[in-house]
C-alpha cells in the first residue's frame, strides 16, 4: 500500500484521518474503510455520501465516540476524545435527540453544553454567559432567546443548537445532516449563517450529508464517502461521474438522465485536483499498469 498522503504533509490539520477503518461488532465489512482525509484549519469541507455510506461513523470517529479499528484519527494533533472533552470540536446533530417538552428557555439550551463543564459549586462565570449571548447574536436568535425551547420552528431550533455548539468556543464545528427539516427559504439563511461562522469566528466547518444542497451551501471542498473515500476537490470539480460512483444507481433519481460507467468514471478522474484516497479496483489496476 502506498504511503497515506496526509502524513507526508507538514502542519497541523484540524482533523486528520490516517488509514482509518471502523467495523461494527458482528459486521462482515467495514463501515468506513481506510479513510485518508485531512481537514485543513479554516476550511469548509462537505462530506457527501448515500445513507448507510458511513458518514455518521466518520463523524463518530472524528468526535472520538468510537475508536478506529485500524488506522488513526487526530484532532489538532490530539486524540479525538481529548479534543471533544476540551471543547476543541463541537457538533450539531440531527435534531431527533432533544426532548422538547423540557422546561428550558432558549438561553438555557444555548448555555447547557458550556455550563456542563463548570464546577457545581460555582455559579455560571460571566465569560460563559457572554459566550452564550455572543452565540445567540451570531445565529440571530436574539428575538426568541427567552422563549421556551419547545415553542420554536424547525429552523429556529437548528440555529439554537448551532449556538449551543458555538458557545463552547470550538475550533471545529461538525454538522450532521443540517438540511433535514429545513425549507427552501431556510436554506439560504443557513448558508449565510455558515459563511458568518466561518468568516467571523474563523471556524473550521465540516458538513456531513446525503443532500447535495447542504454541501453546496458554502463548502470549499467536497469529499465523497461510500464506505471508502472516493475523491475530494472543489465543489465545481464534483462531476456526475464521481457522484455516480458514490450513489451508484440512485444518481438518476437524483439528477434525472445521467449515463455513466462507474469504471470509466474513476479512470477519467483527473489526478490534478482529485486524490483518489480509496482503494477502488480501477485505481489499483492503474497502479499495477504503471508499475509493469
Amino acid at each position: 500500500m502506498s504511503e497515506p498522503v496526509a502524513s507526508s504533509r507538514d502542519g497541523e490539520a484540524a482533523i486528520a484521518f490516517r488509514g482509518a477503518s471502523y467495523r461494527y461488532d458482528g459486521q462482515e465489512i467495514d463501515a468506513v474503510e481506510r479513510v485518508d482525509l485531512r481537514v485543513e484549519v479554516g476550511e469548509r469541507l462537505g462530506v457527501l455520501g448515500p445513507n448507510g455510506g458511513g458518514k455518521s461513523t466518520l463523524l463518530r470517529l472524528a468526535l472520538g465516540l468510537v475508536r478506529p479499528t485500524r488506522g488513526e484519527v487526530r484532532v489538532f494533533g490530539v486524540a479525538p476524545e481529548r479534543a471533544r472533552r476540551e471543547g476543541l470540536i463541537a457538533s450539531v446533530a440531527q435534531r431527533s435527540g432533544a426532548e422538547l417538552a423540557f422546561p428550558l428557555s432558549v438561553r438555557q439550551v444555548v448555555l447547557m453544553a458550556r455550563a456542563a463543564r463548570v464546577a457545581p459549586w460555582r455559579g455560571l462565570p460571566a465569560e460563559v454567559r457572554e459566550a452564550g449571548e455572543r452565540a445567540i447574536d451570531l445565529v440571530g436568535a436574539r428575538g426568541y432567546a427567552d422563549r421556551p425551547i419547545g415553542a420554536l420552528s424547525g429552523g429556529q431550533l437548528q440555529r439554537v443548537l448551532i449556538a449551543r455548539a458555538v458557545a463552547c468556543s470550538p475550533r471545529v464545528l461538525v454538522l450532521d445532516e443540517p438540511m433535514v427539516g429545513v425549507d427552501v427559504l431556510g436554506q439560504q439563511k443557513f448558508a449565510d449563517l455558515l459563511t458568518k461562522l466561518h468568516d467571523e469566528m474563523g471556524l473550521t466547518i465540516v458538513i456531513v450529508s446525503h443532500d447535495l444542497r447542504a454541501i453546496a451551501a458554502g463548502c470549499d471542498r467536497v469529499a465523497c464517502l461510500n464506505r471508502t473515500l472516493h475523491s475530494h476537490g472543489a465543489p465545481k470539480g464534483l462531476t456526475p461521474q464521481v457522484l455516480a460512483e458514490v450513489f451508484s444507481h440512485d444518481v438518476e433519481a437524483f439528477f434525472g438522465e445521467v449515463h455513466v460507467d462507474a469504471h470509466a468514471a474513476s479512470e477519467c478522474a483527473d489526478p490534478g485536483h482529485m486524490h483518489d484516497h480509496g482503494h477502488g479496483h480501477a485505481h489499483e489496476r492503474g497502479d499495477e499498469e504503471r508499475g509493469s
Partner: protein
Amino acid sequence: MRTIEYLTEPGLAGIYWPMVLAGFAIALTCATLSVVVVLKRLAFIGQGVSHAAFGGVGVAYVVGVTGVGSLGQELGLLGIVLGFCVVSALTIAHFGREDRADSVIAIVLVGAMALGFILFEVAGRSAAAGGRVSPPGVESVLFGSFTGVGWRSAVLAWVVALVVMGVTWALRRRVVFWAFDEPAAEAFGLRTRVLGAVQMVLLALAIVVTMRLAGVILATALLVLPGAIALRLSRRSVVVFVLAQIAAVVGVLGGLVLSFEADLQQGPSVVGVLLGMLVVVAVWARWPKGQIVR
C-alpha cells in the same frame, strides 16, 4: 381532628412523628428525581426497579435479615434490597440499550416478583420450623406500612434524601443536558453512561426508602406524579423543580392526614391525594383562562 391527637398525645407521638418525618423525607427524595423521571421517560424503568425490590426483600429474609430490631438489621435489609435494585437497574440499562427496553423491563419485573414470592414462602416455612421471625405479609411489602416506621427509619430516610438531593445538585448541569438530549451530551464530551448509571443508583436508593413506607407498587407513583404535576404548571426549570418538591410534600403529608382521619392505609391515601392534585392541575391548565403553560 385525629391527626392533632396522634401528634400531640405523648403515647402516640413516638409512633406518628417518625411516620410524618419519614414521609417528608421520601417526598423530597422522590420529587428530586421525578422531573427527570418524567422527561427522560424513566417511569417504566422505575416500575421495574421497584418490583425488583420485592425479590431483594425475599433474599434478605431467606438469609435471616428481617430489618427488625437493631440498626444492623435495618441497614442490612436496606443494603440487600438496594443491591438488588441497583443490579436490576443496571441490567435494564445495559440490555435495554441493545434490545427492546420495555421487554427487558417486563422480564426483570416478573422475574424479581416470582423470585420474591418463592423466597417469601421458603423463608416462611423455615421460620415456622425454626421458631424464628416470620416474614411480613406480602401485602405489606407491596403496599408499605408507615406504622412500622421508627425514629431510626426516619433518620435513614433523611440521610437518603440528603444524599439524593446533594448528588443531584452537584450534577445538575450535566443531568439537565443528559436528560434533554443524551446523544448531544455524549457528543459534547459528557460521560453519559456514568450519568445514566448514577441516575439508576439514585432511583434505586429512592425506591428502597419509599418502599418501606409506601410499598413497592406505590413507589412509582411518588416518582412520577410530582414531576407530572409540576410540568403542567410552568416552563421554567427552577420553578418546575420547586413545584415538584412542593407537590410531593403536600401529597405525602396530605395523604397521611387523610389516612389518619379516615382510617385508611397510608400508601394508597398518598397516591390518591397526588392523583387528585394532578387532575385539578390538568383541568386548570386546559381551562381557557387558566392557560399559564405556553
